[in-house]
């Protein structure tokens, strides 16, 4: 306890330096917490589940996948034809509608990215929305019911709603970008809970399909995307064996000849989507994060080295009055580790609460993820990073204190 007091008092000796070093640690831990949260979240998204497997059916040879909507019903049944065939427990179709609330232009404040799907699937098939706590679930359920009663209903993520400067109850017109000449007039019936879907919107698939039919009726020809409107089909199966069987059923089905389709696990599908970001993620994981940790160690090493050099006489005095070389070394290590662990913890815990509770996630749109939560592990990451980097940064200066020779420090010609 007395040694801890000595450590704390020593850190107060040069408050500006200690605070600057702490600030450096906090900034770097903040950045690394964000990076690790994004990477960790993607790791979770791309790791295989052992139960409640989700599979993604897409066009086999083409990216982006654009399948005819006529595939939907068969695929949602897992292409089951025989009595012995298995069917998925649940399923969902996705049609992506990209547009703008302003005709002819698209900016941050007018951009709309919508999943066109069956509204009721939001609560059973969408990650995170399928496990909402009772309050937010009831609110979303209420919005879904409105969408089912009014197929022009739209649910908008809270940040997107703020960006387009609308509120629940307002009506918006979305001018299609990928679906050229398709304009959807929607009524905002609710929002997603804060988090992953902050920038997304959901439109009833029936409305998009009806709009495509209306286009054909008006223009006497089908819309160019009319037969390519379905981008993904999600199927949920209870386990890996069932997935394999459904996969086999889809592969063998003669229904999907043109275009052919494939099914892969959700994690594999997400991995494929993330392939475009592979270099970026590799740099984040193997270059940026280690560089930050190394920088952190250098920052601490610099501060501790200066401190040790300034205090050689004091350390010699400690030796004179009986402190062992190891005790002095541990005092120096203790100062660095105390500073690193405290500053690191404050930073990562602060980041956790600020990003999750105030910002509602890290805004880093990538693949279908618009923002990322700071993972629970961040609560101890700061302490761990602080400990490791401060230990690495201070071990050499601390070891150097062992070799301080009292007679050299106090040497004078007397």
């Amino acid at each position, binding site marked *: 306890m007395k040694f801890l007091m000595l450590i704390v008092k020593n850190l107060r000796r040069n408050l500006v330096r200690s605070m600057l070093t702490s600030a450096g640690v906090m900034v770097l831990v903040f950045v690394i917490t964000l990076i690790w949260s994004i990477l960790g979240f993607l790791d979770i998204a791309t790791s295989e589940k052992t139960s409640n497997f989700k599979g993604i059916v897409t066009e086999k040879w083409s990216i982006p996948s654009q399948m005819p909507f006529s595939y939907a019903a068969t695929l949602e049944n897992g292409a089951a034809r025989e009595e012995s065939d298995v069917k998925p427990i649940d399923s969902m179709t996705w049609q992506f509608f990209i547009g703008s609330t302003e005709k002819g232009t698209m900016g941050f404040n007018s951009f709309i990215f919508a999943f066109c799907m069956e509204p009721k699937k939001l609560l059973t098939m969408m990650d995170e929305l399928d496990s909402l706590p009772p309050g937010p679930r009831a609110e979303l359920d209420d919005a879904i019911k409105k969408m089912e009663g009014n197929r022009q209903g739209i649910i908008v993520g809270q940040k997107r709603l703020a960006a387009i400067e609308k509120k629940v109850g307002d009506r918006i017109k979305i001018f299609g970008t990928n679906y050229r000449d398709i304009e959807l007039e929607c009524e905002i019936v609710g929002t997603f809970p804060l988090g992953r879907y902050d920038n997304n919107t959901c439109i009833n698939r029936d409305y998009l399909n009806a709009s495509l039919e209306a286009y054909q009726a008006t223009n006497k020809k089908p819309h160019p995307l009319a037969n390519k409107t379905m981008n993904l089909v999600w199927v949920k199966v209870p386990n890996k064996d069932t997935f394999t069987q459904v996969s086999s059923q889809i592969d063998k089905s003669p229904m999907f000849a043109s275009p052919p389709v494939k099914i892969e696990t959700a994690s594999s599908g997400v991995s494929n989507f993330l392939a475009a970001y592979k270099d970026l993620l590799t740099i984040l994981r193997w270059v940026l994060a280690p560089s930050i940790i190394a920088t952190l160690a250098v920052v601490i090493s610099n501060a501790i080295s200066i401190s040790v050099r300034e205090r050689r006489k004091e350390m010699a005095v400690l030796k004179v009055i009986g402190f062992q*070389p190891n005790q002095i070394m541990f005092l120096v290590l203790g100062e660095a580790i105390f500073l690193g662990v405290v500053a690191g913890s404050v930073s990562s815990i602060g980041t956790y609460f600020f990003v999750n509770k105030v910002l509602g996630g890290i805004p880093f749109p990538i693949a279908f993820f618009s923002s990322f939560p700071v993972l629970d592990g961040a609560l101890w990451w700061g302490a761990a990073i602080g400990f490791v980097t401060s230990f690495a940064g201070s071990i050499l200066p601390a070891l150097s204190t062992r070799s301080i020779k009292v*007679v050299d420090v*106090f040497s004078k*010609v*007397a």
Partner: protein
Amino acid sequence: MATEAIVRVSHVSRYFKRGSERVNVLNELDLDVPEGQFLALMGPSGSGKTTLLNLIAGLDTPSEGEIWVGDRCVSKMTEAQLARWRNEHVGFVFQFYHLLPVLTAYENVELPLLLLPLSAKKRREQVMTALELVGLNDRNSHIPSQLSGGQQQRVGIARAIVTDPTLIVADEPTGDLDAKSAHEILDLLNVLQRSLNKTILMVTHDLRAARRADRIQHLDKGRLVDQPDEALYEAG
């Protein structure tokens, strides 16, 4: 005064290598200091006073010869043994006090006790006794920068005596003080010697300070000399 030697320096030489050259600082020096004696070591610059003090205090080891303090041969101890021994048996008083600037007077005095297996209560008792002896018990919460030079040296002396050491070594303890403060510090060392029977070794350039000791030993070119050349001190 007791007559049994508590410090015995026997044929001690200390030399350093400077490149290929050997620099002899002490040459086959013999010295006995009886228990309870206040000994002043004087000599011109480079005569080896501080080196001798460092050797006796276990901060350095002789190139040749032996040094005994009480029943311990200091010159044969390992670094860890020396650190423990210094903590329990030697009190140091430095010319420039060398107090830790971030600690209060109380905490500075308490430092050597942190290494001993003492309860907080016992530590407090010893610290307060030491501060009382040097007349600074009302300044125990002051940090060094809030104390005068003389007061800082008193704290340094309190730190030196707080473990009740066998030996007090003082390297120019008045060298950084004005005449009045120097006088007070020497008074204090005299009190410690007489009332607590402490053995004190003091290195000084100041003849007036040396005259406060029971005995003065002169060093010149690494040897003890009986009749110093007065001119040698003029530079100091």
